[in-house]
């Protein structure tokens, strides 16, 4: 991802999470508290990473913000509006690419346009531009099975971006990728976000990934999910691999690691 033209600059929307809990009813009739009274506020244009161990409810929180699940208590506001259903200004990138194998990459990217009943041809140029920016120029006519895992996830990101979302939700988007591809994708995501500057909520279980990418890191405790730490990351952008060896970077990751150690998620070394 290189430079983004000014036309793709969005104006992010803010998110308010108010006293939000989520209880799942299990098959045996018992209740499972997945999310326990979470309060947070995400400013327009902010990059927030949520880091926590598996099963801490971070994906649940994302589903609530995406309007895919109703909260049990509390409410979530996007742009001052209570979330009752998926918000039209929100794009979601999931853990796997979820590309439809019977559609070409271009047709996959234009899927949200079709679903919203907009005219495809108005967005075809935008889709090509996005493909160019993520290094997939000329791949629009290919099928998902012809692309590597990293390329497919890039295409999935294009699909989320084609409607110019003002809030982008990413649920461990690079979790299924190999380490090298992952590192490149993280760096490219920063570049993309610096150009678009929309609001971005990024879920991960990698402390380094969270600190490297985000303006703010929210640390979640194991079930029931609560926010244990809300840390602003003050490292200059654009960040690069050298940022990872800065004392500040190491200070943040050590602080977060200490929380996981105290909770027993990581053992003390």
């Amino acid at each position: 991802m290189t430079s983004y033209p000014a036309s793709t600059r969005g104006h992010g929307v803010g998110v308010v999470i108010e006293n939000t809990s989520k209880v799942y009813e299990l098959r045996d009739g018992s209740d499972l508290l997945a999310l326990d009274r979470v309060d947070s506020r995400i400013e327009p244009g902010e990059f927030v990473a949520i880091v926590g161990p598996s099963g801490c409810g971070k994906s649940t929180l994302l589903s609530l913000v995406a309007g895919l699940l109703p909260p049990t208590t509390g409410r979530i506001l996007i742009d001052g509006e209570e979330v009752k259903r998926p918000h039209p200004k929100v794009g979601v990138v999931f853990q796997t690419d979820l590309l439809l194998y019977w559609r070409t990459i271009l047709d996959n990217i234009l899927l949200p346009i079709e679903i919203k009943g907009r005219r495809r041809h108005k967005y075809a140029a935008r889709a090509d531009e996005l493909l160019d920016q993520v290094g997939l120029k000329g791949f629009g006519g290919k099928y998902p099975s012809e692309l590597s895992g990293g390329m497919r996830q890039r295409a999935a990101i294009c699909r989320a971006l084609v409607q110019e979302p003002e809030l982008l939700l990413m649920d461990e988007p690079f979790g299924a990728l190999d380490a090298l591809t992952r590192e490149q994708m993280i760096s490219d995501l920063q570049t993309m976000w610096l150009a678009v500057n929309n609001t971005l909520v990024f879920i991960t279980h990698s402390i380094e990934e969270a600190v490297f990418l985000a303006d703010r890191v929210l640390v979640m405790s194991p079930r029931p999910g609560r926010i244990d730490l809300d840390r602003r990351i003050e490292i200059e952008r654009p960040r690069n691999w050298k940022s990872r060896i800065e004392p500040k970077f190491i200070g943040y990751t050590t602080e977060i690691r200490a929380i996981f150690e105290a909770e027993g998620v990581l053992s003390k070394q």
Partner: protein
Amino acid sequence: MRRRKRSHVRPVLESMAAPTLSILFLIAWQVAVPLAGLSDFILPTPWQIIRRIVVDYRLILSDSLITLVETLVGFAIAAVSGVALALAIFYSRIFERAVYPLLVAMQTIPKVALAPLLVLYLGYGFAPKCFLALLLAFFPIVISTVVGLQALDKAMVDLVRSMGANEWQTFYKIRLPAALPNIFGGLKVGISLAVIGAVIGEYVAAERGLGYLQLQAGSQFDTTLSFAAMIVIAFIGIVLFWLLDLGERKAVFRREPAK
């Protein structure tokens, strides 16, 4: 991603395997019958059967048309109602609870045993044959379609919902295309069974059709004609199956899902 390189000879060999085996079998049959000293009354040779089909083509063709129409009518009704029932089972929990066990129970009834009753209820004409064809084709179509509809990844549904898709769009854009390979699988099993259903109907009570022709030939000890009818029945089944396969190639994207 690419599979191991293969020689150019192998695909040719693979595509020739079935015809070669069939021809070898026919030759063996042709040679073995006189060697074993069997009369055509016990076992006719392939060549005798083919000659008989050519000689009696008018008779065989008119009976074939009858069987074909019975099969197609039964199958068409089974396809439409089977897919409709599968949709009802998929989208309604009550329907699933109520109908699914009945459907499975119904499947355990030997349909052949129903044939005489159907004649009693529906008469000697087209109706009982079509109904038997329908009955046999119905079950695999319903089951395959339900399985296909259920196969969709839950995350895929979340994806299109996050884009604002309604129930109809979810069905039309992702659930139906994802289910098509299974639906066609059910239809292909169904069409083969529909041919069998129609012929069974003709065995029990009929005045026309290939099943009737075969029965008549058998009662007159005309084994060659009996074989001729049997081979035409099989031929109809193969052609109908092949037509559906062709339709599937047009409708269904054959590429493997990305792993």
